[in-house]
């Protein structure tokens, strides 16, 4: 069987959906954060797949790869800041359960 663009898009779509479902369903902040990373990974996979099957003069379109590396870098920065905030929250509330982070309400 030959791998086509659709296979990659199905896998990355499934990854994105799993990540999104995780963000919506899970309560632990760290797990939510992991699911967010999963969504970014899905986007990366989509980018690479499109670039591989989008040949420009016989070469993949490398623009997409550039965006991919920026996404990885930015995601790392986001994790660095995010974990720091989660640690600070844990210090003051002793929990990472999102349902307990609710002092402000309508």
């Amino acid at each position, binding site marked *: 069987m030959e791998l086509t663009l659709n296979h990659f898009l199905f896998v990355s779509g499934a990854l994105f959906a799993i990540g999104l479902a995780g963000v919506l369903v899970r309560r632990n902040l760290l797990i939510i954060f992991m699911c967010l990373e999963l969504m970014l990974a899905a986007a990366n996979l989509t*980018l690479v797949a499109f*670039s591989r099957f989008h040949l420009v003069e016989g070469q993949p*379109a490398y623009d997409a790869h550039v965006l991919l590396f920026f996404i990885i870098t*930015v995601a790392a920065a*986001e994790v660095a*800041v*995010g974990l720091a905030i*989660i640690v600070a929250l844990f210090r003051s509330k002793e929990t990472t359960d999102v349902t307990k982070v609710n002092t402000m309400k309508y």
Partner: protein
Amino acid sequence: MPVYYLEFIVVALGLVLLMVDAFVKLEDKRSLARLAILGLVVVFGLLFFVKAPATAEGGIWNFYAAPDKLSLFFKGLALLSTILVLIMAIDYTPLVVAQTANPEPGAHPQAGLGEFFALPLFACAGLMWMSSANHLVSIFVSLETVSITFYILVAYLRRNVGSLEAGVKYLILGALSTGFLVYGFAWLFGVTGSMDLAGIGEALAKEGVNTTAALFAFALILIALAFKLGAAPFHLWIPDVYQGAPTPVTAFLSVGSKAAAAVVTLRLVSPFLASTPLVGKVTAVLAIVAILTLLVGNLAALPQKNFKRLLAYSSVGHSGFLLMALAAAPRVSVENAMSPATVVGFYLGAYLLMTLLAFLVISSLRAAIPGEELDSYRGLAKRSPFHAAALVVAMASLAGIPLTAGFFGKLFAFQMAIDAGQWWLLAAALVAAAAGFYYYLKIAVSMYFSAPGKEDDTSAIRVAPLTGIAMAVLMILIVLAGVAPGVIIGLLL
């Protein structure tokens, strides 16, 4: 001077500030903020001396659009809001120090304050870059520069549960919107095979474009942008984050972040609006989002008791007016009609003036009115006529009363909807504007005509000189733009 030097100067200034904070023994770290303000004023001046490049091709110009009036206008907005936010931050210092001080003996009494003044500069550089971004990579990177800086700033009061909670909420939802944005970008690239906006526009305008995939990409990107703009139904983070964040950061979020999101929306949505196969569906979706945002933002503001929360819903409502201008754009066929970019630019300029004025008042009253509850503003006119007058001007402009900047902002947005024949949109906007009159003017009335509560402090309140000057300038500008809107429009056309 090439225009992109401006961003580099702002970043360098931020780095200098961090270095000074780390290596120079400062008695009072507020001088860092004064240094930053000075630097930004210089950059603001340089804005008038940039020249259009001879060639705008190759190298950095692949990622950075040649300067046009719109991008320079938004750069000016970013700089102006950062300057005013830093002025606010100086007033707000005692509170930040109380929540971030290092408890160990021998530590600097203001340890942990320096970054509070340096971070807005990095956000400012990101905002400025965003207004010129013409490539998906540079849009993404500048958007994230701003977002990540804001995550830190929102959660800055690290011993305050409210601030941390706001920070976590903003972090999770911001990262979620980033996920949608990059997935949308990936699909947009897949549909068009191009990463720069010009190429995307060309590919989308072709007849044979895959409309299903293009609309999927549009939906994903619109979700992400609606998060950043605070458009319904993705506005749920706004009230909590605005309430919990330190007031200067709230002001920066509501003005800087919204202006940047609006300019990115303008740039990303226009290729879709220019494409004949897609324009009908795209406009319908935009109109629905605009109607929802107008109604949700303004109606939910009615029962609010906390001033910052009220301004949060008001900012959602104002996003609705911005989206209204966008949704009405493609059908405008009237001669001499303003372009959506002009309307959005004017609206954001007016919004900046009035919102920052309101936040300046709130943050300079922070010592006298700690809770930001609306009830504690009763009888403010007796305690501080200047604050009360400034707040009245801000509220009148936010409500859109004639002779203020906000009036023309709303008028132009309405005009676009009328020209486009979007009657449902117009009806929603009328309801929204009417609701706005009630909740904005309620505050003005209670400041002048209600007696202060018995237990309330009735002592007079003083204004810090720099804040006073900033408030006076903003009041003058609001009235000026309300009498002669051509002044701002001239900067845009």
